[in-house]
């Protein structure tokens, strides 16, 4: 059964009427209803397009967190051939909140790193809801080292509410692990493309998103702190998340205007969760285009482009 978000109620109603009518026509072949069905379907489609054309920041946050939205492993399955997952930080543990490995992307050997949130209770627990511990970031550093050594571009898929706030994570240096991972992104001599596929949450996101090109899905959000956390910092009241989301400029459209991201990847009508395959394919096309731009660049040039890209942010607002 499809999960409908709060603001999708009118669409859900229309779609369920269509389903009811369909069920009726299966029993009774009379043609009077088929016209009604197509009329309702047309209205539902129109309403869907209209609704998704004008989502507010909070609605986008809920879309970005939609349980049926394609996650990191969906992208890897569809886009990366011969994917070989690699595990462990070699210091303490394997952290499945960040998945990574090697494979080929449209014929090009690549290193892929991404946050995975999981899609049911079991996998969500396995991947810790996409909230990484220091080991996840240290694994990312290890994979980036390898990418540099074997001259493989790095593709990252960003989808996290933030790094995990826990006692163990703090004891083992969560902050340092994030800082080193950001550091490593910025020192890479190979091109790096980051795609914010759902939620780009805070330092937990930037640790694998300090790339040459940053792409963002149309309904993804990218924030300095999750709206809940920001509300709790600003007003000591996490229930004011909607206010925080509205004032912080977190949508792909806002971030493009601010020069923080390079490209918005259009999602299928009604969001990526209504056509996972289509959404992933479009992201794949955008990644291929972004990588191609660095084909003739030397490692120093690639690094320089990345540095200038970040240093220029905010200088011409």
């Amino acid at each position, binding site marked *: 059964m499809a999960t409908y978000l709060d603001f999708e109620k009118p669409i859900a109603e229309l779609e369920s009427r269509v389903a009811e009518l369909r069920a009726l026509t299966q029993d009774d072949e009379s043609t009077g209803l088929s016209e009604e069905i197509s009329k309702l379907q047309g209205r539902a489609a129109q309403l869907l397009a209209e609704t998704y054309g004008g989502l507010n920041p909070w609605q986008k946050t809920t879309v970005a967190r939609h349980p049926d939205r394609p996650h990191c492993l969906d992208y890897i399955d569809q886009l990366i051939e011969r994917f070989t997952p690699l595990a462990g930080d070699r210091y303490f543990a394997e952290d499945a909140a960040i998945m990574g490995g090697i494979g080929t992307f449209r014929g090009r050997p690549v290193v892929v790193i991404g946050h995975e949130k999981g899609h049911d209770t079991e996998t969500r627990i396995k991947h810790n809801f996409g909230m990484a511990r220091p080991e996840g970031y240290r694994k990312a550093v290890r994979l980036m*080292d390898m990418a*540099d*050594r074997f001259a493989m571009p790095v593709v990252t898929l960003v989808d996290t509410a933030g*790094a995990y*706030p*826990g*006692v163990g*994570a*703090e*004891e*083992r*240096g*969560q*902050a*340092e692990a*994030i*800082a*080193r991972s*950001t*550091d*490593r*992104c*910025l*020192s890479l*001599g190979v091109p790096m493309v980051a795609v914010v596929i759902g939620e780009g949450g*805070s*330092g937990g996101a*930037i*640790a694998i998103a*300090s790339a040459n090109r940053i792409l963002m899905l149309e309904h993804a959000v*990218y*924030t*300095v*702190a999750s709206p809940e*956390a*920001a509300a*709790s*910092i*600003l*007003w000591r009241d996490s229930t004011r998340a909607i*206010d*925080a989301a509205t*004032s*912080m*400029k*977190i949508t792909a459209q806002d*971030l493009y205007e*601010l020069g*923080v991201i390079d490209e918005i990847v259009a999602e299928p009508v009604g969001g990526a969760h209504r056509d996972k395959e289509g959404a992933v394919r479009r992201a794949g096309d955008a990644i291929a285009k972004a990588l191609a731009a660095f084909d003739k660049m030397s*490692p*120093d040039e690639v690094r320089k482009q990345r*540095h200038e890209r*970040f*240093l220029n*942010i*905010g200088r011409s*607002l």
Partner: protein
Amino acid sequence: MNWINNVVRPKIRSLLTTRREPPDDFWKKCPGCGQMSDRRTLEESQLVFPCCGHHDRMSADQRLKHIFDGASYTRIPVPAVPVDPLKFRDGRRYTDRLKDSKASTGLDDAVLLADGRLGGQAVTVAAQDFRFMGGSLGMAAGEAIITGMLHAVAKGHPFILFAASGGARMQEGILSLMQMPRTTIAVQKLREARLPYIVVLTDPTTGGVTASYAMLGDIQIAEPGALICFAGPRVIQQTIREQLPEGFQRAEYLFAHGMIDMVVHRHKLTETLARIVGILMAGRAKIATAAKSSDPLKHVNGHANGSPVDPKLLGTSARDAETIEVEPVPDEDRFVTQSKKGAGAKPPTKGAPNTP
């Protein structure tokens, strides 16, 4: 008479009253043990409470005064940044909050930069001020850190950072988050120039500041009792709903967990920093003079695109006339495999083709 009533009496009264009642902020209660100390004693002891040694928070001004030789330094100007690009309101306008902070602290933003001498050595110092919107990292603070580090590179100075921050500045949204990679780039420039980057973590250093430039120092020092963390204790408690360990996220706790090099009392800080800078800069000077021709500062970036081994070194040893050529030895000569032993086969002769 009039003169006595109007001028002399009030003057006498005011003298008496001020003596009897010191100004409101004359005494300060120690947050550590609750005992009172007077301001003057505190100033003299660099805001370390004499009762239990609690290190009180220091303003950026005070920091600069205490760190440099003879309290003399030159401020480095920080370039202006766009103000309130998000037009942010959180009940009040962000621009109003900025105005208030500027008025109450006399600062432009949360970071001050200065050049001066420390134990006779030229250094560049950045000090964060927690009073300015919680020392939060916004565009201005980020730009200041970058300016300070690049200034140090240009001058060939070691860079010392006094970190104090509640983390990212929410009112600047994503532009605040972008200061994490931006400042990290500046840290890389220090590293490429082989200039010491020393971080002093003071109370409190949290969030995006800890998770970027404040944890990337060559040497990490913390002041006693300082709260240093990524996620604050309140957030963690809300998430895990458990009692937090004793001393959790304090300087001593981080030291015990291998996250910092040392916890240093404020009275020993200047001496420690001067010593560290002296040793590291002496090391640096040695490299620079030893190999001027081969440009030693070129391949510094710890992970500069691949192998840290200089290919030239490998080349020279191979070209040496005295190098012994290693003859290829077949696997059979090197390992006596189990199956061959069992079959009682004679050891294969050197270079014999490997026939099954």
